[in-house]
């Protein structure tokens, strides 16, 4: 048997900077995970659809546009409607401190700002998967 952690790395919203998302994708790959990368400018519907079809274990959202308070809850809502209410979500990007708790309350597992160590993210994901 051959099991791998499957991660969706998505960039919802309109900002055009995917360097952060690519750095994370690469780091997770090097940690032995299978990373589905969707590219720029995804609608919440596209993200939820990809999470469903790919049956991923965890979803990472990279948002630099400031629209996280609209996009993230919407994506979680759509995933719930798809029957994936337990699918863990983490958010990376530029998230003001006062918004972090709002996102956590909306069901996000963790928020990683600029300067977060990729090793931390890898660690967190592996712990989360071990609990499953």
């Amino acid at each position, binding site marked *: 048997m051959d099991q791998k952690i499957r991660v969706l790395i998505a960039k919802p919203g309109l900002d055009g900077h995917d360097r952060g998302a690519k750095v994370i994708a690469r780091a997770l790959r090097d940690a032995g995970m299978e990373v589905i990368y969707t590219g720029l400018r995804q609608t919440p*519907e596209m993200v939820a659809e990809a999470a469903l079809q790919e049956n991923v274990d965890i979803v990472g959202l990279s948002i630099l546009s400031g629209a996280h308070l609209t996009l993230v809850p919407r994506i979680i809502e759509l995933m719930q409607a798809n029957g994936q209410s337990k699918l863990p979500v983490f958010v990376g990007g530029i998230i003001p401190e006062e918004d972090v708790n709002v996102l956590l309350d909306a069901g996000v597992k963790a928020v990683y700002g600029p300067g977060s160590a990729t090793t931390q993210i890898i660690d967190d994901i592996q712990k989360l998967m071990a609990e499953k």
Partner: protein
Amino acid sequence: MSSLVSSRLHEDIRDNRLILARLITEVENDTTTGRDALEILYPHTGNAYIIGITGAPGVGKSSLVNQLALAFRKGTGKETKPHVGIIAVDPSSPFTGGAILGDRVRMRDLSGDTGIFIRSMAARGAIGGLARTTAQVARLMDAAGFEVIMVETVGAGQAEVEIARLAHTTIVVDAPGLGDDIQAIKAGILEIADILVVNKADLPGVESTERALQAMLQLSNHSGRASSAGSSSTPVWEVPVLRTVSNKGEGAFEVMENALAHLHFLRTSNEWEKRQHLRIRDEVENLVMQTMQQHWMKNLPPSALDKSVEALYSRKATPYQTVKDLLKLSGFNFD
């Protein structure tokens, strides 16, 4: 048996995309649940038309799949729109086992259409351009009612010809400017093409790429293909060379029409039956070998292999006799 596999399994995977998605994971991981599901669903398979798309890295395979899926969903006007399943295979890192599966990036036009299901797969160390379980995943989609299934291989060079065994129609994609790479491909995957596509046909050099492909086809018409086709009354498929510009959506409709013509050719000649039989034989052979290998490893007494290696190293044993002994130790007897 897992709760995923119920007596309503066939209905479940038709009606519930999440169940299909989860079962694909089970099959990909080769679990008991996955195997149970495949056994139950087998009678409901064999209906899908499987198209393989292969070619060197960067020629535009994903973009062509994207355009082809759109074309199939628009339809030929004559029939109802087929449901389209897509399996996109990307390589796994040989060092970490991880993978970045990025084919969805080029398939964003397909989002929002519930008649399309895209699944990315990592090759997980398998050589041949596909993952070990790609054929089984295609079978799940087949049972789930996808009439057309497109399988995109990893960027392929010479030896990645496994797709030809899985697909009914194999499309090999090339692009201008690959230069000497064309020579390299010539010996390998071009031979499995039912349809040749020169993508990025708006780039300079398209004529020379096309000429090179045509020349190669003429050569093989004189040798292998013609003689294997038998008597002159047997219909022969002429491999077309088509141009596309996938990022602008040009040419995809013609590729679809040619694929359907090839399907018609397979159906009306005895090729369909012949290929399906070959494919099934191949699959059974592979499964038997896999199972025997697993049986051998499971039943081999611990350290037996180490001892044999040591004996061979010190030249106290010989290879073929060692094989016989090792097989006997696991309960195989070939004398």
